[in-house]
């Protein structure tokens, strides 16, 4: 483990006992994620990408192997509030306004009212939701709700952001826009981001590192270091370099029998 390693997994395995017998959700995962990286996890359903994120967040427990988050066990990391987690659905509380939703983690963490107000203001600025603090979630579109949930994860300023298919339920236009915003936000905040996705273009566009996974058992079939520049306009997706990386992702998926 280097000093810059933020998430480090060694021979990590997780077996779920189900009614149909044991399911190998993760098998012998070895992975290093360094500070400031934006790492995408891509693969078909059942490849263990979400499970890996949940293990890192201490929402699932590995059967064998080790994983360290900021040099700690996931449980310690969770108790120290080392990461913010963004789920597939925004999951905002319908009885709280956007502002109050963002205050939720801050209230639990015992942060003073005045500091809460300051942070709410700054994260709403970051996700471009300035004038919506007094609105209730149902008054916002799906994309805006997901931005609010990202703001909620950013509010307590953990240096790791774990995102589980946050844009999966949104249409492609909104998704493109949020991808651009996420890149900007990542550059501004210098956070380490783990991002689970089903979409090859999304993975290639966002990442500094792409982890290609395959199912049954869930394992890593390729890790691709992106050669794309830091500055990425949306039309970079038509460049030969982009297409070459997307091709390698597809090859990795094929090698893992993801298309069978």
């Amino acid at each position, binding site marked *: 483990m280097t000093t810059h390693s933020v998430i480090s997994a060694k021979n990590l395995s997780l077996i779920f006992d189900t009614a149909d017998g044991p399911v190998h959700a993760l098998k012998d995962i070895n992975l290093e994620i360094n500070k400031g990286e934006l790492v995408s996890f891509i693969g078909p359903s059942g490849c263990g990408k979400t499970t890996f994120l949940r293990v890192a967040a201490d*929402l699932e427990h590995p059967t064998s192997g080790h994983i360290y988050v900021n040099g700690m066990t996931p449980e310690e990391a969770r108790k120290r509030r080392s990461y913010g987690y963004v*789920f597939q659905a925004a*999951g905002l509380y*319908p009885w709280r*306004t956007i502002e109050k939703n963002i205050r939720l983690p801050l209230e*639990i963490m015992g942060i003073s009212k005045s500091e809460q107000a300051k942070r709410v203001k700054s994260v709403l600025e970051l996700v471009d939701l300035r004038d919506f603090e007094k609105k209730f979630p149902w008054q916002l579109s799906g994309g805006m709700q997901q931005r609010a949930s990202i703001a909620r994860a950013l509010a307590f300023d953990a240096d790791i952001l774990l995102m589980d298919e946050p844009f999966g339920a949104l249409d492609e236009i909104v998704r493109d826009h949020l991808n651009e915003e996420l890149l900007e936000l990542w550059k501004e905040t210098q956070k380490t981001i783990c991002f689970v996705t089903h979409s090859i273009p999304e993975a290639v566009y966002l990442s500094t590192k792409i982890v290609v996974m395959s199912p049954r058992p869930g394992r890593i079939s390729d890790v691709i270091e992106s050669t794309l520049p830091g500055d990425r306009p949306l039309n970079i997706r038509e460049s030969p370099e982009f297409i070459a990386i997307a091709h390698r992702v597809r090859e990795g998926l094929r090698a893992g029998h993801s298309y069978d």
Partner: protein
Amino acid sequence: MRQALIPVLSVVAALIVIWYVAAVGLNSAWAYNKAERANVELNLSDLVKDTLSQEKPRLPAPHQVAIETWNTTVEKKITSKRSLVYHGWITLSSTLLGFAIGMSMGILLAVGIVHNRAMDISVMPWAIASQTIPILAIAPMIIVVLNSIGIQGLLPKAIISAYLSFFPVVVGMVKGLRSPDRMKLDLLKTYNATRAETFWKLRLPASVPYLFASLKIGIAASLVGAIVGELPTGAVRGLGARLLAGSYYGQTIQIWSALLSAAVLAALLVALINLVQQITLKRMGML
């Protein structure tokens, strides 16, 4: 609201017509009986006139019930023993006390069931069993037992109300407290929230719509409990007493007007809870 008015009025009008027809039919035997003894022939208009104005009809006509209700509410002083307002208040007060007890019990039990595995397994079967016992069977025993230890008046009736009203509240609250999905619970786990924080910030607010649905059933059940609780005491005060006294003396008009009052009271109570629900959910941004 206005759209609902016409269908509602049509149904009411139809019910009144059926009621009148049934009153003529059911009361005709007594009308013929009287006519036979007086040796007169009854034509249709005499029959209708007689069946709708008997003193102790099998089924009183709507206007008889309406007049009786008017006379015993508006025309009587509310302190009079013959005032329905007086009796209604007696029943209402034990309904409300019983409802308050039942609601608190129901909420506390639900909180226990959701947070404690032993309670989860043990309480629910008993709660269900409690509701399978006919309330008419257990009400006199509650009154007698409490009376023997010196508890009289409002409280025994309220306990019977509570006995009926806690159950829907338990069932609804358990469902409501468990309504937050896995994701919402996981989110709080990532914040390292305590169980108490999970309860106050997530489970309790999420249960509010479920609670109100239960309270509407609960308050109606509470009124039934209060009326049933008035029957075995020898029935001197309350809507239950009016029903019982009416049936002792064959005063069917009095029975029906007490029934009507009970129904109106129940409707008003449910409407009141509905109003509180609207205001609460609106303020919570959930409506």
